[in-house]
Structures are given as structure tokens and as C-alpha cells.
């Protein structure tokens, strides 16, 4: 399976009749890192959960549940059994999930710790004794301990300072490449992600509206939403005014572009007709009135 490409087609998550995510088509290349970007509530986390096959109770997911997927969470401190030292937690996964004999777990633990740039002695630490960055490394080691076929990181870097964030992102990419497995990294930090990820998917209301090579997507955003999102960094002049608020009371259009109710360029067609994919294979988007590349 190593190096192979996993194709996900028509991934959806619904709550009763209401569709929260999708349908979503994703191509996960072995050794490649796919970044999923979007604002809060855009369905990033649900997409990952659906890929891992653990959606919250009451929700219904289709097309996901990739076997052998391992998740890394946003808040790694609560990811570990607080009673156990890190080494014991790693041993649990190695022994119970991978059926490694206990006598051989020690060498496996130290090689996993080295993989994520932790010291052998760190196995003796309790989770509450580690810093955020160390915890996130340990969480990645936990995920790697399962020998995953797919590595999923859910806002794994959001709680970290910028320097540590880049280090962890680089680490995620490196381990995915070394193991030739695909990784999906979810973040709302488009800039950091685009510099390390091989591909970027921009989600809005659970629907992909733009995707392609990270550098291209960030340099020349075509969908109006992404264009506004990239402009809406906190800044005194434009504070909070670039991206219009979600209008209250307006029901989400089920046929049209999901961004139409907020889009300053939207017309009647946007509200009734979902745009088709346009652009090239390295950068494509769905917008009736795309921004011109500068």
C-alpha cells in the first residue's frame, strides 16, 4: 500500500436530512500532504473524523472510514491517558494494537521517539510534565505507533507558537514522506500550511470551493471567498470589514454556491446554480465570478 494513492469519492457527513460536509472528492497521494483549510464551522474537523471513521454520535458519514488511519488532535494534552507516562502509552498501542511482544516494545518506543525528535528519556515523563510542542510530537509518535496507512492531523498546530507550529508541520510532512503514506492536515492557518503541504483544499460550508498546489492557491486566489479570506488578516484599517458577516435568517442555498449569501459579487445565478470546476489540474476553483489573477 505504501506510496499508493487513495482516492476518496463522494465523502459526506449529514445530520438527518441536513448535509454538513460534501460531497467531497479527495486524492490522497502516498507521501503527500494535503492541507484542508477553512474557517471555523466549515467542516474541516468533520471531514477528518469521517476519514478516520469516528464521527460524533448522531451524525451519518458516507465514503470515509479509511482503514488504518490515525488521528492527531488539536489539544495533545488531553490526548493521553493522564495516569501513564508517555512510554507506557506508546507501549499500549504497540502491544495491544500492533501485537508487538512487550519485550520488544522498548526499542520500538525509542525509535518512534527519535522519529518525532524527542529524547529517549522523555518516555519517562507524564503528559502534564511536557510542553505543548513536546506533547504534539508525542501525539504524532502515538499515531505512528499504529503503523498508519493514513495520517490525519486535526488543527494539530493551532495551539502552538509560530516557530513550534512550523516545526511540527515540517515534522508531519517528513514522517508522511518517509513512510510514503498520505497525510491530511487540517488548519485555519492557510499561510503556514501552504508552504509545507503538497496540495490545499479550501472548504466553505463543507464544500470544496478551491484546490490545487499550495503556493498557487495562496498566490492567486480565484474564488471570491478565498480572495477575501486572504485579505482579512487582522489590520487596523480593515478590521472585521473585509469578509461580510454571515447574514442572519437567510437559509443556506442548497443548489447555489455556498458563499453566495455573503459574497459581494454574487448575482442571481450564484444563488441557484453551483459553479462547475474551472482552471487547471494544478489549481482549480468553483466560482461564477472568479477574481482575476494579478
Amino acid at each position, binding site marked *: 500500500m505504501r506510496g499508493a494513492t487513495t482516492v476518496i469519492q463522494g465523502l459526506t457527513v449529514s445530520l438527518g436530512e441536513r448535509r454538513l460536509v460534501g460531497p467531497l472528492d479527495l486524492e490522497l497521494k502516498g507521501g503527500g500532504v494535503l492541507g484542508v483549510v477553512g474557517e471555523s464551522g466549515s467542516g474541516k474537523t468533520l471531514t477528518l473524523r469521517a476519514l*478516520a471513521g*469516528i464521527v460524533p454520535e448522531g451524525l451519518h458519514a458516507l465514503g470515509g472510514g479509511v482503514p488504518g488511519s*490515525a*488521528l492527531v*488532535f488539536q*489539544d495533545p494534552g*488531553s*490526548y*493521553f*491517558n*493522564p*495516569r501513564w507516562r508517555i512510554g507506557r502509552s506508546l507501549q*499500549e*498501542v504497540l502491544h*495491544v*494494537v500492533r501485537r508487538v511482544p512487550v519485550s520488544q516494545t522498548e526499542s520500538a518506543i525509542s525509535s518512534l521517539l527519535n522519529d518525532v525528535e524527542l529524547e529517549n528519556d522523555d518516555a519517562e515523563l*507524564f503528559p*502534564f*510534565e511536557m510542553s505543548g510542542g513536546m506533547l504534539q510530537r508525542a501525539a504524532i509518535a*502515538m*499515531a505512528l*505507533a*499504529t503503523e498508519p496507512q493514513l495520517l490525519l492531523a486535526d488543527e494539530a498546530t493551532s495551539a502552538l507558537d509560530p516557530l513550534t507550529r512550523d516545526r511540527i508541520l515540517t515534522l508531519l510532512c517528513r514522517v508522511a514522506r518517509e513512510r510514503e503514506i498520505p497525510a491530511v492536515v487540517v488548519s485555519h492557518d492557510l499561510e503556514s500550511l501552504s508552504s509545507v503541504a503538497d496540495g490545499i483544499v479550501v472548504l466553505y460550508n463543507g464544500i470544496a470551493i478551491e484546490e490545487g498546489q499550495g503556493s498557487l492557491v495562496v498566490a492567486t486566489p480565484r474564488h471570491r471567498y478565498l480572495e477575501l479570506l486572504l485579505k482579512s488578516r487582522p489590520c487596523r484599517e480593515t478590521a472585521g470589514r473585509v469578509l461580510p458577516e454571515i447574514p442572519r435568517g437567510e437559509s443556506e442555498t442548497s443548489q447555489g454556491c455556498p458563499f453566495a449569501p455573503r459574497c459581494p459579487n454574487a448575482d442571481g445565478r450564484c444563488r441557484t446554480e453551483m459553479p462547475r470546476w474551472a482552471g487547471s489540474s494544478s489549481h482549480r476553483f468553483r466560482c461564477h465570478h472568479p477574481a482575476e489573477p494579478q
Partner: protein
Amino acid sequence: MVAHAVLVLFLVATVAFFILNVLPGDPAAVVAGIDADRATVERVRVSLGLDRPVAVRYAVWIGDLTRGHLGTSWTQREAVEELLRQRMTVTLRLAGLGLILSILIGMTMAFLSFLGRFGHGMIRFLEYFFFAFPQFWFALLLLYVFSFQLGWFPMVGMHGRTPFLLPALALALGNGAIISRTARASLREVLRGRHVLAARSLGIPEPRIVLFHVLPLAIVPVVSVAAIQAGYLLAGAIVVEQIFSLPGLGRLTLTAILQRDVPVIQGAIVVFGLAFPLLNALADLVVGFVQPQLRYGRNR
């Protein structure tokens, strides 16, 4: 911890002494008997040391206490600590079994409540039922059903192989309900925790998650509650011992109260008073074992 227990012991001993010594009535007259004449009562008063001032008697009481002596029973003419020691085993076995049963009952109920909506409703009803009825009512009910009707257990006293099972069960039901409530809330909290989701996503089997990742964390509040409840179990044992005619601390204390045997009452109060700090210390040790954060400072 030790200083704490000593302070509690001292306060309990002092309060017990003064409450019992300012009670109206003449203990010497009770001990001497209803028919005794004035001279006999006076002789008894001197022989019990009651002719000495209260301050002197208090000093003697505290002084004896530091040497582990709790005085001499007025009616049985035996050292109080010896009397207590003889009866203590019965009460400790009863309360101990009661504690074990209440934890078993409580934890079982808590787990069952997670088996669907019906189980949850059933368990909530049982909790109220067990908690609302007093221990002596359950004692009488159990005695009637299992001893009188079915004849599985002895009616009175220390006969048969399991004389403690029924009285311990009577003690345990109400406490089991409290433990179940605590355990239910705490299990729900821990099950919602992220490390459970993480363990699940990593492929750890569910029974192992419950046993190693949920239970050890969920029992922390249960241990604290159980320790407090254990003290009340000792108190409840007094009543239940009466119903089942078990020769424990409870019967000793009750007899002593009826006979105005002040040294025995004082001794019993001190023993019961000491049980609470001891049980709390025990609970702290268990919690420390479960939560590595609390051990941290001492280990390195």
C-alpha cells in the same frame, strides 16, 4: 496528616468528656442501683473517682489517653480499651463488608446505567429507592425475607457461615446508591474525555479502554465519597447490629448509654471520632496512587 489526626483526637476527647460530665443526673446513683441508700451511693461515688473536681478528672482522662488507656468501665470493671477491642472486630468486619458491598453495588449500578435508556431510568429509580429508605427498614426487610421466610441465613447472632452478609447488605444499599450517583457522573465525564476518543481512534479495544483508560480516572471522586460514607457505615452499624443481635461496638455503646457507663461512652466516641481522619487519610493514599500529579512532588 498525623498532627491533624492528633488534633481531631484531642478535640473529640475533650468534647466527649465535657458533654458527658455536665449531663444532669447522678451517675453514681445509677451505678449503685435504684434501691441503694445514701451511704452506698457515696461509697460508689468515691470508688468511681467522681468526688474529685471536674478539672482533675479531665486531666486524668487526657493523661490516660496519651498512654492509650481509656479508663475503666463502671459496670463491668474492665479496661474500656479492652472492651472496645473485643467488640471492634465485629463492627469492623460488618462495616468493612458493608463498604465492599456498597462499592460493588454502586459501581455495578453505575455501569448498568450506561446500557440504554431503560437501564438508565431503572438505575435512577433504584438509587432513589435505596437512598430514601433507612438502613433499619432494609435490615428488617432482609431479615424477614431471607431469614424468616427462606431460612437462608441465621435469624440472630453470630451463627452460620455468613452472619455478616445480611446486615452488611442492609448497610450497603443506601451507600451503594450514593456511590452509584457519584460514579455515574464521573464515568460520564471521563468517557467524554478526549483521551478516550484518542484511544478509540488508535484501535484500543473497548473493554481495555474502560478498564485502563476510564475506570482508574473515574474512581477518584468515588474513593473520596466512599471514605466519607465509610464513617457513616460505622455509625449505621450501631443500629443494624441491634436488629441482627450482633455483639459489636454498637451494642456495647448502646448498653453503656442505658447504664450511664460514662467511660465506655467516652471511649466509643473517641474511637468513632478517630475513624474519620483515618479513613480520609486512607482515601488520600488511594487517590494519590491513581493520580500521578499528586505524587509528583514527593517522588523526585
